[in-house]
């Protein structure tokens, strides 16, 4: 209950800061433009998914760290109250992740509703995008939180790591995968490649999007490994499991840091 009241306070604070409104507006404008100019087909959904894969990790990580730094005095004030640290942590985290997720959901969901996408495209694709977006928001806010707590005294370092971390996961990691493919392409590397993709949450989300929207192209690949993996329940459950690990581990680590921290 106490966690909830902290969450509520943060909620108000965030909205007073207007920043979160701007974040939601970005999604609203982009989704609106995509659907308006791309038509109400799956093309628009795909473009929205692309933006989501780009923006959510970046904003989640940086803002996750930044918010901890910004609300340092507030945190210290609350620590003086008779609250246990666990409650405080979940209050702070939920107070950031929930508004971010809501901003995304509303920003993307509103244009979909008023353009009637729920009628013209498959509900499954829409739900997939909304669920994936919310999951990524929570996941990367958690990562940002962890970085923020890890480098609590050194803000530049914390933010730097958040930025570089995003760059690594979004671009450099895929570059390494591509390099591996071209160096070792003559060997049967499909399985290691799948394992590599599982290690990166952005890739995981991207492949899930591919499975929904680009299955024709994926089926054009000659190897049976991908087809078997993607087509099976096993593939989907392994992917979901990996996302859960990515969700759980940073949060668990940052809670431990938060518990032990001498503010």
């Amino acid at each position, binding site marked *: 209950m106490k966690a909830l009241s902290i969450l509520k306070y943060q909620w108000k604070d965030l909205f007073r800061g207007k920043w979160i409104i701007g974040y939601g507006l970005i999604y609203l404008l982009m989704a609106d433009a995509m659907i308006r100019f791309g038509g109400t087909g799956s093309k628009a959904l795909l473009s929205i998914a692309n933006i989501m894969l780009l923006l959510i990790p970046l904003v989640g990580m940086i803002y996750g760290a930044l918010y901890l730094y910004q609300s340092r005095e507030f945190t210290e004030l609350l620590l003086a109250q008779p609250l246990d640290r666990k409650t405080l942590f979940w209050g702070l985290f939920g107070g950031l992740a929930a508004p971010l997720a809501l901003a995304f959901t509303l920003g993307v969901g509103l244009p979909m509703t008023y353009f009637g996408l729920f009628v013209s495209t498959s509900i499954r694709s829409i739900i997939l995008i909304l669920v994936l977006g919310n999951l990524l928001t929570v996941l990367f806010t958690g990562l940002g939180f962890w970085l923020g707590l890890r480098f609590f005294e050194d803000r530049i370092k914390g933010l730097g790591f958040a930025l570089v971390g995003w760059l690594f996961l*979004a671009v450099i990691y895929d570059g390494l995968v591509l390099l591996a493919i071209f160096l070792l392409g003559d060997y049967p590397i499909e399985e290691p490649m799948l394992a590599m993709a599982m290690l990166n949450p952005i890739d995981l989300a991207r492949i899930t999007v591919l499975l929904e929207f680009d299955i024709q192209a994926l*089926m054009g690949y000659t190897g049976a490994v991908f087809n078997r993996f993607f087509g099976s329940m096993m593939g989907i459950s392994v992917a979901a499991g990996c996302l859960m690990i990515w969700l759980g581990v940073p949060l668990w680590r940052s809670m431990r840091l938060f518990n032990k921290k001498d503010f």
Partner: protein
Amino acid sequence: MRANKKILGLITLFVMLWQTGLARQVTVSPNGPIDSIKQGIIETNPGDTLLIKEGTYREYDIRVDKPMTIIGEGKVVIDGERQGFVIVITADNVTLKNVTVKHASTSFMEDYAGILIKETDNTVIENTTLVDNFFGIYLAQSSNALIKNNHITASGERETKSGNGIHLWYSKDVTIQDNYVKGHRDGLYFEFVEGASISGNLSEENIRYGIHFMYSDNCRYEENTFRNNGGGVAVMYTENVKILNNRFEDNWGASAYGMLLKEINRSRIEGNLFINNSVGLYIESTNNNEFTSNTFKQNGWGIELMANSTDNLFTNNNFLDNAFEVSTNSRQSFNEFNHNYWSQYEGYDLDRDGTGDVPHHPVRLFSILVEKQPQSLLLLRSLLIDILDAAEKIMPVLTPETLVDSEPQMTKIP
């Protein structure tokens, strides 16, 4: 003498008229005096009509060796019980209507068919239903046949144990119209056919190709639908084909193509819709063709154009939401792309004449990477790939410079 000749002519005419007027009708029915179709055929004279009453006839190798019309009344089922051919037509001017033909036998040595038409002229097969035959309708060395409104299904699982739905070999001027074929090896199969017209057919869920078309010059196929076949459609080694207004859809797989063209020359491919295929159109060693007004929508690859194809013209086509619009295997391309609409086009139109001011390069760098290392397909829609594509677009190093649409359209071509 002249009068005599006239009289003689008149008599001949009368005799002919009399004969036609005399064309009898023989009736076969399960409990009538003639209860087998074979018996019925023996009883008929050339030009007669054989009427088959409702019922099931367990017969095979029924030889139709004189001109006649065979019509089923009600639900007529001819069951070959897997003993060989069911109906074999060897005479000219035979018409077969309204019957169901079942269970021709399966063999690795002989091409058993539900209806075999061999060395005939003017055969008409209309409104028949073929169920679970090895081959469905098999035409060999025949001309002027009409195959219309037939419903041909089989439940083949393996290529070797299944024959083709409608199989044409060395035939001429055949019309194949409004048929439905499902579950055979190839839905329609053409080899050494000249001047056939294939229209309004639906061929789906066949094990290999929806239509398999080889060495068949001067043919024309239009308004057919080929859906969800193992390998899509293959058109090979042919000149002067007209492929108009067909639909190729839902062909998925590593070697599944909406349509595969191999060694096709001087042909027209116009107004077709390629939707939801792994590869919409695969083109190899194909020269001097015109591809106009086609729509490529939501395919993995819109067109895969192999470098050994030259002098093809692609104009007024729509490329909508394909993962790859065009891919190729060389930096050289001697084909012309002009005046198409590309949904991936990112240029602008300052003078507002409907044509983009910057040329469009439909071959992405990534499609070349995938061509070289297919595994990299897993990186589709990665930010890294988008960055690489953008860099390549500004300064092309690996993508073919000549494969370019210099007049990309700003709006979809109707």
